[in-house]
Structure formats: C-alpha cells, structure tokens
C-alpha cells in the first residue's frame, strides 16, 4: 500500500464534481481510498489527519487541486501519471459550445434578461461574487456558507437599496415562479407562499403541500442567520412584502428556527400588519397567534393551517390517528429486549433534527443533540453517540472537506452501522430527502447499512426499530413511492412526515420508559 498526493496548481472544480471524480477513482482496482479536494486550510488538515503530508501539499493553496490516493503502488502510479483523465469529464461546456462568460458583467452583457445569480463558490469568495452580481442588477441566491455576518448585512442592505434581494448566505432552497433553486423538490405551483430560513424545512413544507394537492406560489429563502439581530431580518421582511404584493399568493407561511426574542417580536409585529393570512412556524418556540397569524408547532401543522387558509382541505395524512399510533408503539416496545432503552436519530436535514427534538420535548422527554434545542442537552462529542441522542450530520464538523449528507451518505452509513453494534439502542430515526441536488438514490445509499444494523440486532437475538420519513414528491427524480417502497421492503417503518416519524418514536420511547418504571 502506498499513499501519495498529486497537486494541480490553479485548478478549480466544484465540490460535487470532485466527489464524483474521487468516487470514480476509488472504484478502480487496486485503489483503497481517493479524495479530490481544493487545498483549503480545512481540507489540508483533513488530509493531514488521514496521514497525507509533504512539502508540496503544505505549499498548496485554496486555488489548487489535490488528488490524495491510497492503494497498490501500480494502481496509484497509473492515476498519478494521468490525473487529467479523471478531471475532464462532466465539468464545463460540451465540445463545440461557445466559451462561457467569466464574470457577471460579461453574462449580463450577453443576456440582459438575466435576473438571478446562483452562487455556490467557496465561502472566502462568496461575498465578493454576490456584490458583483448585485452591482449588475441581479438578485442573489447565495448557497455558500462561511460568509461573515458583517458581509451578510452589508450585502443585504445594498440589495435593499437596489430593490433586489439576497437569499442567503447558507441558503439551501428557494422557489421562484416554478423554478426550484438549490436543494428543491418538484412541487406544483399553487396559492401558498413561503419565506424561510430553513432549507430542509421548506423542502418538507413544499413536499407535504404538494402531496396534499396544493402548491407553492413562490418560496423565498433567507439564509439561516437572517433573523439574527446582527442582520436584522432584511431578507425575511423583503420576502414577506413581496409575497404580500404577489397576486399568486393567497397565504404566507413563515418557517424558521426560533430567533432571539426581540427578533421574534419584530417578526410577529410585521406579520400582524400583513394583508394576507399568515402561518408562522418557529420550530421549538412557543408564540401566540394573534389576528391573522396562525401559529404551528410542526411543519405538518403549518401545512394543514396553510391549506385551510387557502380554502383547501388538509389531507388525511396530515391528520395522524394518534390512538392507532400509540397502540402500534406499545406493541413494538413490548418486543424489545430489556437493555434496549435508547433512541438514536441520524439526520441529513438540520431542521428535521431540530423539529424532532421539539416533538420529544413536547412530551417532556430530554435527550442529547449536537445542536440542542432549549431544554435539551449538548452531545459533548457529536462523533460519538451517548444515551439517547439526535445528531445533525449536516453540521459543520461533519461537512468540513466533504459534501453534505444529502449528497454523500458515506458518513451516515458508517454511523448507522456503529449504532447497530450498541445493544442499548432500541430505535433509530432517519430522514431521507429527495429532490434536485440530492443523491440519486438516498435510500439505496443506506440499504447496506440498514441491513447491517438489522443483522447485528438479530445476532443478539432481538431487533432494532428503524423509523423514517421521506421528504419529496412523486415528481422528484428519485420518486417518493419508489424510495418509500424500498424502505418498507427493508423492514423500515415509514411515516408520512418527519414530525410524525418523530412522534411515533416518542410514543415508543414513552412506552419503554413506562416499562422501566413497571420493572
């Protein structure tokens, strides 16, 4: 086995292309492991931790590409001798195509109708590109994270000045006139407008609205920090105002993790003046609805309220049968071994991790999390599960130097197999998120690990209950029905939404707690 790095100076590729290139290399005979990364400081640390070193790597910068290869000498040498062969497919215009513009100025000159910049360059350059886009009169969808709060505020103020908006930084999802931007599901257009600081929350909301026969007029992403006092909710307010004036929007749903109390008060005051019915879902916060504002504790409730406000019937799947759920939970809890008393939640969607905590907290159940809701405990090392815990695998710690778990299931699969080895685990809660940019087969990516968990539990003479939800629609490329069926066939209990999957797990855990008390 040998290990080597190949550096290509001043070669930029996006992280998804690099992940796919690394996968193709890794699949070659004789290659044990391969990474393709830009030599940012964080990525150089990741490579050092993996045992790669040398002066050339130490001297590489964030504009340089590193191929890190491990395997049999001949196989590694073959790749290292012709790295371009692995970097030439799929990124860039096709042969014979016109050269692409190199700046927003060139793009707008070539096509004056351009109206939205979609920016996902590395964080260090994101504010610079966003500013350039605004100055060319473009609205901005800014997926990049690691943009300073000061830059975020100044970009948003400049956008407001110009009558434009900055959705982001750290904005995962938006819908503009039927275009799903970023991580978005294939949903029909309809009467519900969304403003949200949570990408996966907007995906769950829009998918459930679509499944209920309704749809989304426009969905304005704001970026995760927009409501923080330092930013001032500039994009949230712009989004609310735009939807208020949008004739296609009958009801406005605002989705966010709970902001600071002053920001919540400002938001509620603004929504109180809204001319259209409003549904407010601040996950984990208790806010009183007043006037035209209806408040929802979960995304399911928010969808049900929005449907009613738009004159539609909430679908049956948004009204779960609590009694039947409780009975099934009791039955399943009764089948577990006495030492099985913990739940582990492994989430790709940060907001779904948050919402699941809120569902547990409602019943007074406390657990650990790497992004704990008020009243929950901090998981000291998110890489190691302890007791009952929920882990957001999209947290910075886990995505440093690798793609998000919605794209790359490797880490979640490994973690899932680890949980299977723990005899105290009773229940594992999972989320699967479909749609554009997500893995082409999110369920298939984890079926091996799911089988591993079941085998490990079986060897101990019992079973681990696997509970999941799938966020998406039948029109997503992955197919909601096909993904759900694959889970059911693998023995996973699938519920129609994350909130219901969490509620089902909560019922099982309550029965387990009662069993302990009886013992």
């Amino acid at each position, binding site marked *: 086995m040998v290990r080597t790095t190949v550096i290509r100076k001043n070669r930029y590729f996006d992280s998804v292309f690099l992940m796919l290139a690394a996968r193709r290399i890794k699949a070659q005979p004789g290659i044990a492991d391969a990474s393709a990364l*830009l030599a940012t400081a964080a990525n150089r640390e990741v490579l050092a931790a993996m045992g790669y070193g040398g002066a050339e790597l130490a001297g590489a910068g964030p504009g340089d590409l590193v191929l890190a290869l491990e395997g049999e000498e001949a196989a590694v040498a073959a790749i290292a001798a012709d790295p371009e062969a692995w970097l030439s497919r799929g990124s860039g215009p096709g042969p014979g195509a016109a050269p692409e513009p190199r700046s927003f100025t060139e793009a707008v000159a070539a096509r004056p109708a351009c109206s939205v910049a*979609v920016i996902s360059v590395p964080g260090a350059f994101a504010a610079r590109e966003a500013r350039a886009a605004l100055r060319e009169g473009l*609205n901005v969808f800014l997926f990049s994270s690691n943009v300073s709060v000061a830059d975020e505020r100044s970009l948003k103020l400049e956008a407001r000045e110009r009558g434009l908006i900055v959705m982001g930084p750290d904005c995962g999802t938006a819908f503009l006139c039927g275009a799903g931007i970023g991580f978005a599901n294939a949903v029909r257009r309809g009467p519900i407008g969304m403003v949200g600081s949570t990408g996966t929350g907007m995906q769950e909301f829009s998918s459930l609205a679509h499944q209920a026969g309704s749809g989304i007029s426009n969905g304005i992403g704001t970026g995760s920090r927009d409501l923080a006092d330092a930013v001032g909710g500039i994009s949230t307010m712009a989004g609310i105002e735009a939807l208020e004036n949008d004739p296609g929007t009958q009801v406005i749903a605002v989705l966010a993790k709970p902001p600071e109390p002053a920001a919540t008060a400002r938001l509620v005051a603004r929504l109180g003046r809204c001319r259209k019915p409003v549904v407010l879902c601040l996950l984990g916060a208790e806010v009183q609805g007043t006037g035209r504002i209806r408040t929802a504790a979960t995304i399911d409730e928010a969808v049900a309220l929005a449907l009613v406000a738009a004159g539609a019937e909430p679908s049956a799947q948004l009204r779960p049968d609590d009694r039947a759920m409780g009975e099934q939970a009791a039955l399943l809890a009764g089948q577990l071994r006495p030492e099985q008393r913990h739940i582990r939640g492994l989430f790709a969607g940060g907001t779904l991790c948050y919402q699941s905590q809120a569902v547990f907290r409602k019943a007074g159940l406390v657990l650990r999390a790497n992004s704990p809701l008020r009243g929950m405990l901090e998981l000291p090392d998110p890489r190691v599960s302890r007791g009952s815990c929920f882990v957001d695998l999209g947290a910075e710690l886990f995505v440093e130097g690798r793609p998000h778990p919605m794209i790359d299931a490797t880490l979640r699969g490994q973690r899932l197999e680890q949980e299977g080895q723990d005899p105290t685990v009773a229940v594992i809660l999972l989320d699967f998120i479909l749609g554009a940019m997500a893995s082409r087969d999110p369920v298939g990516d984890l079926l091996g690990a799911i089988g591993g968990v079941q085998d490990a539990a079986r060897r101990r003479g019992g079973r681990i209950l696997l509970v999941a939800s799938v966020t998406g629609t039948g029109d997503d490329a992955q197919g909601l029905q096909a993904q759900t069926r694959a889970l059911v066939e693998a023995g996973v209990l699938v519920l129609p939404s994350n909130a219901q999957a969490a509620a089902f797990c909560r019922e099982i855990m309550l029965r387990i707690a009662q069993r302990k008390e009886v013992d």
Partner: protein
Amino acid sequence: MPIPFEQLLQGRPVFVNVGVRGFGDSLDEAGFEVIHLDWSPPAGGDARMAELLDDLL
C-alpha cells in the same frame, strides 16, 4: 436592466450560475434558461490578495 425582486415573482427568471455546476444543471433540466460562469478563485485562491486587488480597481 435590473429586475427588481418584486417583479421577479411575476416573470420567468433567467439564471447565472457560478460555483457548483449542478445547481445550474437542475434549473436547466427543469426548462429554465441558465448561463454558467467559467469561474476560478481570483488571485490564485488568496482571498486577502483578491480583496487588495479589488481595492485597487
């Protein structure tokens, strides 16, 4: 010609994508017009140097 945000919600957006190519490709697959920028980190990837150069321009 800038298209103010509120007007944007009434028309058909035209996108300029920079960074992860897949973001533009999914909009393109959904039937929207997308222009990709040929982007590489300015100043050889040195963000501070890029800022200094910006200040000179």
